[in-house]
């Protein structure tokens, strides 16, 4: 599969691997989303960051990338870093050791402190492909983004299921959200129509063991 002319691999862990650059891309980690709710009095389990980082560590083992790019909204809110438990902080450092790491800023985390390790950027170029948090509108010759948390509702012979997915065409790809507590937006929502003006896009739905291209006819709205 190609985006903007470069070869990419969509992975059922929700990550994207760019073999030519030995780069792994993940979007919307939303670390410390659980504790952000707890601050407001909704006591969600305090294990989401741990779970998200465990998943990430597992993908890193499989691909051994030289560079990891987090596509924005890595932290759920501006004070998330201050709530990050020590164990998770050191888990992050372990993962960063020996490889380049780039935090791309997002609307949830417009600023990322140096204390988190890695570099910070608003966007990044891999060849002629731009990596940014929020997809641009209009034509592009190569863009990889997150932000929208695409999910697909697949309806087959009466049984429906809802799964995160990649959505894109030859020039643009939107990644599913990686975080443990992230919900999704249906790919048939207006927000995606604006990105694929001709209404043509491919949807790759995540299963347990593989990523499956699903035809438009089998997609249902919410």
């Amino acid at each position: 599969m190609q985006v903007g002319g470069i070869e990419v691999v969509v992975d059922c862990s929700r990550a994207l691997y760019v073999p030519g650059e030995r780069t792994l891309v993940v979007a919307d980690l939303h670390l410390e989303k659980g504790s952000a709710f707890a601050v407001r009095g909704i006591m969600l389990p305090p294990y989401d960051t741990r779970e998200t980082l465990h998943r990430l560590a597992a993908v890193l083992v499989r691909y051994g990338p030289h560079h990891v790019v987090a596509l924005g909204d890595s932290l759920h809110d501006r004070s998330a870093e201050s709530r990050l438990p020590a164990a998770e902080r050191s888990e992050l450092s372990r993962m960063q050791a020996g490889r380049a790491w780039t935090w791309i800023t997002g609307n949830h985390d417009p600023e990322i402190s140096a204390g988190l390790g890695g570099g910070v950027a608003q966007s990044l170029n891999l060849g002629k492909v731009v990596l940014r948090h929020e997809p641009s509108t209009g034509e592009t010759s190569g863009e990889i983004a997150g932000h929208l948390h695409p999910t697909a509702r697949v309806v087959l012979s009466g049984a429906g299921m809802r799964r995160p997915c990649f959505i894109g065409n030859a020039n643009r790809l939107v990644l599913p959200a990686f975080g443990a507590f992230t919900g999704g937006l249906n790919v048939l929502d207006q927000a995606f129509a604006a990105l694929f003006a001709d209404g043509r896009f491919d949807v790759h739905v995540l299963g347990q063991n593989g990523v499956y291209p699903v035809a438009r006819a089998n997609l249902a709205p919410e």
Partner: protein
Amino acid sequence: MATRPLRPSSGARRRDVARSQSSRPLPTALPSPIANWFAAKGWTPRPHQLALLSQARARRSTLLIAPTGAGKTLAGFLPSLVAATEPQRGEGKGAGLKTLYISPLKALAVDVARNLTGPIAEMELGLKVETRTGDTPQSRRTRQRTRPPEILLTTPEQVALLISGEDAAYLFADLETVILDELHALVPSKRGDLLALGLARLRALAPGLVLTGLSATVARPTELRAWLEPQTTAELSIRLADVIALSGGAKPDVTILETEAPLPWASHTARYAVPDVLAAIARHRLAIVFVNTRLQAELMFHELWKANEATLPIALHHGSLDVAQRRKVEAAMAAGKLRAVVATSTLDLGIDWGDVDLVIHIGAPKGASRLIQRIGRANHRLDEPSKALLVPANRFEVLECRAALEAAEAGAQDAVINRRGGLDVLAQHILGVACAGPFDTGTLHTEVATALPYADLTRTDFDRVVDLAATGGYALRAYDRFARLKPTDDGRLRIAHPRVAQQYRLNVGTIVESPMVKVRLVGRRGASGRPGPKPLVGGRLVGEIDEGFAGELKPGDAFVLGGETLRLEGFRDNEIFVSRATAKDPIVPSYPGGRFPLSTHLAKRVREMLAEPTRWQSLPTPVAEWLRLQEQHSALPGPNEVLIETFFHGGQHHMVAYPFEGRLAHQTLGMLLTRRLERAGAKPLGFLANDYAMAIWGLGDLSAMIAEGALDLGRLLDEDMLGDDLDAWLAETSLMRRTFRHCAMIAGLIERRHPGKEKNGRQLTVSASLVYDVLRRHDPGHVLLEAAYTDAATGLLDIARLGEFLRRIKGRVRHIALQRASPLAVPILLELGREIVGGDARESALREAAEEMLRAAGLADGAPQP
């Protein structure tokens, strides 16, 4: 709406009042305003009404058990009316609220209020009666907290809200009596748990409070009596409220439909009986046609009208219909404008809707008590028999109807399971108590344990639930600084922020409806006009359907709602837009909820009937023939054994078991057995469960495997299947997720979705399913997982019943290898909707979707990417 008249009941002749516990003499006279009122009406107070009065004078809580039409409601209120005529015992300490009436239905509370106002005015008692429900205007609800009426009629949820107010102590200080209507319906549920906790609180706020429970006849009145009385853990015995039990009026006149039409093998629609049902309607004034599910209601309504040549006015009433539409049907019923109403359990409780003289029950009633209560809807006069016609939808249901009829004749009821209170409900209550003011944990634990469902709650478990309410109760102490409950200087707990009280009020109650989607007809502008894509414009509201079902529909699909066949046009926000379909045979919806499994009691009766050929004479000839054939070709299971047949049929090997333990327990059994058979190498492909049997089919030759000893049925059906196999299945089943979601919402761990707030929830909410996954992995001992497991065991998965079954049949498995399907197996083999086996089902469905697309694109190989 018709009335539940406050009358001592009209025309009853024989009234036996059986009393126990209390031997006090009846009071000789009523105070004159009330005695005069009775005299003016030409009525005399009935013994049980006077008995309740003397109970109230003795300040004793009482359970009144009486059939419909016995004047229960007046009996309940009479002590409050009498008290109003007596001189006040000094100035009240509180707001002046004396009597609280609690009903499971707000419509019932409103109905009773209406019927109470008239007599109170005629007696010139000067008592104020008001209702308080979710529909009461905010201004009145606010006023009711400081200046309440003497008599307030409300629902359990409103009681919880009132208790959580800072002014609760003042509001309830003068409270003397609580009347609990339809108690039998409230107690065995989480609503009952919440109410029990609320009553424990009320007893603390108003010492000496007297509770009066009004109930239909139940199998074990002891449980209700204990529920009404405060329990003390210091005593070994259970404390019981007194009981006044009225024996029922005339025996109901119940018959099973006899028809010339051939009896279906496996249908649930009873379509075959439509001409007979119409004829029965035509012979009566007003019939209620009860069905078990909304889907059946839709279908029966549709079928009746298709055949309704005489155009008898027949209406439809179920929970998915718009409220306004339901009210219209109720009014028409009361006004005598209808001849029949097709209804689900929405018409089950309490309210009189009119002069119903026949109850038709479509399908088997699933429980003896439910049948008796539904029959009670016909005819509210004690001395005339209620008339009912049972219409079995298939052959097994004939057996079940026969069993239910015999149970009704014997006056036998289903036992209510003695339940242990939900820990999620307790978490909600603790938060509510904290909203009212600081509390001491030790004192609250003692108070909570006076409620029967929590009588054996240990201090350790109580503290875990306090922690759940305060910080989420996680092993990882990450949220102590965000705790919702904080200690005061004197060591009590208080809410940390006023916001906690606001959140509590939005989440109060235990009814977690599965989210519903509004169904709207496409408006005129949307339906006509230019060709090409049209903007959808909303028109008339037709009703609501389950969100899960809506999710399975695609534009162009047809389904039935409100008796109309509708075509899905599109979705907008939280509504779906439809047009009227023209297709003759609609694709019908499958509502997942609303089906009760066959009760344990009826199941036992059915098994006994099967084992006793002399009793088959009472069955219709085709059914008796069917059983005789089964006896010849295979065998009939004895009352305490389980029959398992294996045979080859339709290209696959089958195993059919006949446990008669209800659909839910069979589903769980099917899930677990297929896992075990897979491990044994029997290559199962799928299974199907109904209320009577469970069938598994696959590629392995089960008969041969059993004969060769490769498969041991005793081992296969060992209780240990409820161990690891169950645990592995629980990790993935959506039933467990749904149960957890309910618990998490009740406990306030995740927020409820409120109407109008569903939009744009992508980053604002976290789905219960994600919470469940994370908790299972990182905090498997969490108190809410425990609560959800307990619920699933008695609820959707019916593990408790499956466990009892496995114990019962240990060493009593009767296997018969057959050449072909047995007569008893025919119904289940004919049923549709087979479930795909295994956790890989979804994965293979995805693969299928991918392959489908690749084929369409002319690509040969459908291998997915890594």
